């Protein structure tokens, strides 16, 4: 009854909406054939789309759940809808999903937002029409604020969930941790800040570049393939309406390539550097510089890039470097004996974890190196996210865990938070998961000595010296 009521209200005023130069689009979550019947029956001639997977509902931040759909005001709303003649027919779609109404203008500004709190909670069409006037102001867009109670529950539950890694790193883990996020943290304007993201054409790098561009930053997407990079940049320009998205070519597996890219980038400012590029090869591959591939791309290449861009970063009033590491590093100590896998039988997953451990140590060392010059350096774990990299490198893991994997945007959340929020510069030399500094070791044997840390630094300096 509620849905036909709402669509009927919009249908009745569709001419008023069109008089204001706007269109109406309705999104439902049943199958297409039900949508068609629904439209015919209601004589609704606006756009009608269907989203059985609720992807757009989630992206719009709409509510769902039994508690939400069955509130105490429900019987009153039901009575009103019945009196108006909108009797409930068989439900097609997810009965617990709640709806909402938005007005979006061509540049992507939001001038109206109504997120239903319960079934039958619709906005007044007059309020929607008011938001269509030329003078309607764009609304501020923070994230939905968690309630006080929700934050408390999140805090208590995460105390128990964190030691159980599976829960913590997965999608439920993100949902739990995100109850504690302060929605104002990403209410920032990055206009004038230039952010460099490596491996930006897909997965977490892409989501990071997209979010930073959305917040108004100038974004440089550092990609191995200019063609794939440009394609991704075009998508970001289209989605954010921001023209300030560039692509630069860099292959972190090659010192030559890193030097060429850095020489080009050093001409303009650099406020944020995100070391995101990563891979997990099936066998041992040696780079032209004689290094094992994951070591080159995760450790040596980013080390050189940071070295070459350090003068630029130091000139920024608020410079940040983010190392995208992985929770896989918890299983490994810093490998100094055979980091290039010359004397061991190659194991890609172990190589990955070792280099991710090295990144955490290296981030700390760079934080010391650049701390006096005001550059904040942190490392982070994105959690287990469903990215093209995970799907192709560890298909077995991907298949097994897919239902609980985070979306790439959820995985990128802490990268963006470290790069963009004021809270993100409160700590340096820390390792983050879901916007909070976490311990760097769960297993005692993985702790490195100070001498080991120095040895890593000297190795990186020696390898990258000209």
């Amino acid at each position: 009854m509620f849905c036909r009521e709402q669509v009927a209200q919009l249908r009745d005023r569709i001419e008023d909406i069109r008089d204001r130069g706007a269109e109406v689009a309705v999104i439902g979550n049943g199958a297409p054939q039900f949508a068609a019947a629904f439209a015919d029956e209601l004589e609704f001639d606006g756009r009608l789309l269907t989203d059985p997977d609720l992807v757009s509902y989630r992206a719009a931040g709409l509510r769902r759940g039994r508690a939400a759909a069955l509130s105490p005001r429900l019987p009153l709303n039901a009575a009103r809808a019945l009196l108006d003649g909108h009797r409930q027919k068989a439900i097609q779609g997810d009965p617990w999903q709640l709806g909402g109404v938005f007005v979006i203008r061509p540049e992507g500004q939001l001038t109206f937002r109504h997120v239903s709190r319960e079934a039958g909670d619709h906005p007044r069409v007059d309020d929607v029409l008011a938001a269509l006037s030329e003078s309607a102001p764009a609304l501020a867009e923070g994230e939905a604020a968690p309630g006080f109670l929700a934050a408390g529950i999140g805090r208590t539950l995460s105390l128990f969930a964190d030691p159980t890694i599976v829960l913590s790193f997965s999608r439920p883990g993100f949902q739990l941790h995100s109850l504690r996020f302060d929605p104002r943290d990403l209410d920032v304007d990055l206009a004038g800040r230039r952010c460099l993201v490596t491996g930006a054409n897909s997965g977490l790098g892409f989501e990071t570049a997209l979010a930073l561009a959305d917040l108004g930053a100038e974004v440089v997407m550092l990609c191995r393939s200019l063609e794939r990079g440009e394609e991704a940049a075009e998508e970001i320009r289209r989605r954010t309406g921001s023209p300030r998205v560039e692509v630069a070519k860099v292959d972190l597996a090659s010192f030559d390539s890193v030097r060429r890219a850095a020489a080009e980038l050093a001409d303009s400012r650099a406020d944020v550097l995100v070391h995101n590029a990563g891979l997990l090869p099936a066998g041992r591959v040696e780079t032209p510089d004689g290094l094992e591939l994951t070591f080159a791309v995760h450790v040596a290449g980013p080390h050189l890039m940071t070295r070459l861009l350090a003068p630029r970063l130091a000139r920024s009033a608020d410079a940040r470097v983010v190392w995208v590491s992985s929770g896989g590093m918890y299983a490994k100590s810093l490998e100094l004996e055979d980091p290039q896998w010359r004397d061991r039988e190659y194991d890609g997953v172990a190589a990955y974890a070792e280099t991710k451990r090295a990144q955490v140590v290296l981030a700390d060392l760079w934080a010391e190196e650049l701390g006096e010059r005001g550059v904040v350096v942190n490392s982070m774990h994105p959690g287990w996210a469903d990215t093209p990299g995970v799907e192709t490198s560890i298909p077995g893991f991907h298949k097994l865990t897919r239902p609980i994997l985070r979306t790439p945007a959820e995985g990128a959340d802490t990268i963006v938070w470290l790069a963009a929020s004021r809270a993100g510069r409160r700590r340096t030399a820390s390792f983050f998961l879901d916007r909070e500094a976490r311990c760097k070791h769960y297993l005692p044997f993985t702790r490195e000595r100070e001498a080991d840390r120095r040895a890593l630094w000297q190795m990186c300096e020696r390898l990258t010296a000209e």
Partner: protein
Amino acid sequence: MRIATRLSGITLSDTQDRPVRLGSLWAERPVVLAFVRHFG
């Protein structure tokens, strides 16, 4: 991230099962975008 940016890359089907990129809905003119609980 702005709602428009998050939604713009999503592609859904219309009643004839044709793909529609959500960003195209507000490319030319403002749109009233209503999410309903279900059809029926």
